[in-house]
């Protein structure tokens, strides 16, 4: 179960990377990166998962006493939340950049922005 999720995550990462490294269109690259991020997040949460346990929230189903045996590892969930938000921020920034670049050259082909080299 965990391994399935995890391998899916890795698969997504690789797909995303492939897309972002082969597509010349900047927007496509950005989208591919979001795919990659999704994969990363999948991997993150899959690490914390333990079969047969519930979410780390104390309510009537989970008593304070036996909490240690009932819940799954809360940390990766906290981390993934952070990761998601940061991903959102970076994506937004990249989109804005894409817009700015389009403004300057009227194209979204990454291979056109090579004045700086060597």
């Amino acid at each position: 179960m965990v391994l399935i999720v995890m391998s899916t995550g890795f698969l997504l990462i690789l797909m995303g990377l492939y897309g972002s490294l082969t597509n010349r269109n900047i927007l496509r690259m950005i989208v591919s990166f979001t795919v990659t991020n999704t994969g990363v997040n999948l991997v993150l949460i899959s690490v914390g998962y333990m079969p047969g346990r519930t979410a780390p929230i104390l309510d009537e189903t989970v008593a304070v006493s036996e909490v240690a045996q009932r819940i799954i590892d809360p940390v990766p969930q906290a981390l993934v939340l952070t990761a998601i938000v940061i991903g959102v921020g970076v994506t937004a920034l990249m989109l804005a950049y894409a817009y700015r670049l389009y403004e300057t050259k009227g194209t979204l082909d990454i291979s056109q922005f090579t004045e700086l080299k060597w």
Partner: protein
Amino acid sequence: MVSPLVLLGTPLGMAFLLGMLQNRWRFASYGITLLTMTCMSLFSADWVLGFASGSLVATDFSTAGAPPPFAISLRMSLTEASLILLVNLAGLFSTLYLKEELLRIGRRGMAVLLIDIMALCGIILTRDIFNLFVFFELVVISTGGLVLLSDDQRAPSAGFKYLIVSQLISVLLLIGIIFAYHSTGTLNIDGMAAASLGLLKGGALAFFLILIAVISELKPFPANGWALDIYESAHPAFSAIFSAAASSAALFAVAKLLPMGGESWLPVVSSIGLVSFLAANLFALCQENDRRLLGYSSIAQTGLVLVVIGQQDILGERYLFIAGGILLAHAVAKAGLYWLSGLLSNRHLTAWTVLRQSPLLLFAFISFIALLVGLPPFPGFYAKWELVHLLAQEGRLAILGLVLLGALVEAGYLFRWFGKVVKRSDGGEEAAVFSVAPIKTLVVFAAVAGGWSLGYLWGQLSLFDNILHTIPVLFALGFLLLERFPVWLKNSLAIVGLVSYYLISYPAYDPMQLIFGTVILIGGGVILLASYSVSGRRMGFYPSAMLMFAGLSLLIEAKDSFHFFVAWELLTIGSYFLILRGKQSEPHALSYLVFSLGGAFLILAGFALAAEGVELFPLSSLSQVTADKAPWVFILLAVGFMTKTASVGLHIWLPGAHAEAETDVSPMVSGILLKAGLYGLVVLLLGMGKQQLYGVELTHVMLWIGALSALLGNLMAVFQEDAKRLLAYSSIGQMGYALFGLALMNHLGWLMALMFVINHYIYKSMLFLSVGGVAKRTGTRLMYQMGGLITLMPLSFIAVLIGIIAVSGVPPLSGFGGRWIFYNAILTAEYRLPIILIFLAGPIAFLYLFRLIHTLFLGQLKDEHRQIKEAPFWLIVPQMIFVACLMAFALVPGVALRRFDLYLNQFFPQGGLNWEGVSITSQFGYWSPVSIMVVVMVIFASLLGWLIFVNRKAQKVKQFNMVFAAERPYRPETTHFAWNFFAPYKKALGFLIQPLATRFWGMVMDLLHTSADLTRRFYTGNGQTYAIHLLAFVVVVYLFSMGSL
């Protein structure tokens, strides 16, 4: 002390506050930003002082009231404190520098800047790995914003490339973090280190991912195209932060993470650093854009620090000293250079020539370059010294060699740049304007001050004396303050300084030091007399000259390898500046410097190899070097010294450097500076004596080199058309003689070498001065354009006449003494073949000497020279002094040599000379200078007297009044036989002087440049390609490290 959390919270709060303000209140927002930066700098400075004074100890600060492993914690120790101080100062000064830009784009920009600095501090402070990731992302995003401060249209594309790469990096980092967490059950770095992550199942991979991600933030070669583009296009003030602060923070992050992986990862880090160091320096060779060049150099320096981090296992408690020295020096210098580049409009390297308009800025420039290259007295120097020693001690010679190689290349392109700035004509129409914004200039000078104070600090921290405490150096630096005063004042001061220093210190000298010391200090004073002939201020001359003399005097006083090497570097730098002053001397000065530094690095390596971990290695214990290392030490040191004596093969720098130098500089660098190499050889040979490598007697090899230098130097001198070049080549020959004498390793050989030291100083200085005077008057150095000057410049003529008689070794002048001792010396030599070369070389001296005097002073006077006067008075004075010395030395060589002869008895007991009465006897022959002089003079005088008596009525005939194949010439040019004077000789022996060495070194240079130019083209500028580079980099390192671990 302010809690580090406040250090992070305050700028953050201020940034949020800025977000709330009105767009209109630009100045208010700027004020807030500036204030925050200032406070942060003060707070961190407070911390640094606290730790430095020892009143504080490293402490962890936990958050959320929970103990560290469970909640994020920050650590503050001396390292962190000084790094955040660095970061905050960089931020503060850049804020000052960015005034207009920030006001233009408004509060948001300032908020981003604040957060960037805050995040960098966070990277340094935090002990939680995920927190580290968060701060890294903050830096990435804020960088993405700050890149836009630049008005360069290409900046956005660079920023976007950075974002792409950073996406990849964060993917790697996150996966690494989560698996590391999984296998250790904690996110705390120390916790992971305690759980020794690197050894756990899957932990090694996780650690690899984390490490490679953080290292990628250091722009390692080849995954660094994006960084270069940012460096090139971003606003210089931001590049300063990016290079100085961001790199330092990331480097510290690497250092912080390494314990998690364990020692086995250190080699990986070292090799990555080494590759970046070499590659970046290589690529920088063919950069024309200043900011990009600086970018390459930053990458190289970061790589170097990475190497140090990778070597921490052997560096022990000196680790921080070394790494810090290199890191801080680089940070200050690079920030300063970027700030400086902001003052200029044009991005071409040569555009920096405008700096010449302001000596202070030029001084700043050279200070920064010295900081980067790691010359004394700057931190990099101490750091490099200790690094090399520790490497040698542990036998990591490959790393040692590569580091020194890279450093040499770096020095090469940096000083080539400096040469261009100082010498090139500021390029006409596209001449760069440079703005003198007071604040910006202030910022630059803040960096300069920082650099020098760092130098002082490191001097205090080093295991040895502080270079900035030695009187000669201070004396030299003092002249920087006197630059405004006229020459005559500074010159008098300089002469007084030299002489009085001699008077103070000579009682302590042994005869060997005494001879060198006299030549250096007193001799220097005499030559400086000639400098009175220059008028005006002569900016930069005296500091350089005095630096050279400081180095020389420290050299002969040095008791241990460190002081010796310091002195060596000082005199190299000083003489480089001196030589660079000549009109056409840019390329020659550069080749001089590169060769000298190369030699210096060999010497450094040699000492390091010899020291074997002894902190203060006394030169005297060169004799105790273990037998397996001894020959190698010998070779390294010998080659290093022979670059200074311009032995054949390493000689190509000398002719240009000596010939193109100013009139009064040539005698200094030729008559005095060359002796430094000889002194080094003397020390070496006294210490190590004869060494054998694979059965080859190394001194025997030196014999051959000396003989070859003597022969080829003289031969090449014969075919020169340029008078000063002729003299320069003859120096090569003369040094060859001296080297030969030393290599003979017997009593008389050394006596002869010392005789050459004195003689060569006297007559070469004299000749350079008089020829220089002639060149000054005639406005040319080409001999065939002169002629017949004897009547116009009689005194110069006398000087040259005496000089050449002395050089050629014809009795009765002092040159003969050298030859006589030489013959007696070789009679006891084991090796006879190289002596044949010397025999051949001897008479050849006549050829160029006669040519010199004939084509200058005899023959036909040219029409355009009919009006010229005798050389300036102050040029003549030292010449006449030299003539007197020459005569005196010819009559009574004993005064100088006798004590030295006795002194030599303790090294070479047999074969001394016998000095009874006026005549000198060896075991083979005898020689009585006085009676020779008397006899010759009597014969000479009587004949001359008679001739004058019978021809008393004779009157001088007109210039063309001579029988000339029944024709009378009308133009002097047609009858002045001077050009290609020794045509038949060239036909016969010209094949001997093929410029093989020149060709060889030229080939090496071309090879470097072309390879650099080809390989750097894989930075295609396409962001996607850069991402692929990064991925490839990761994969390659993965395969390698997994293979090795």
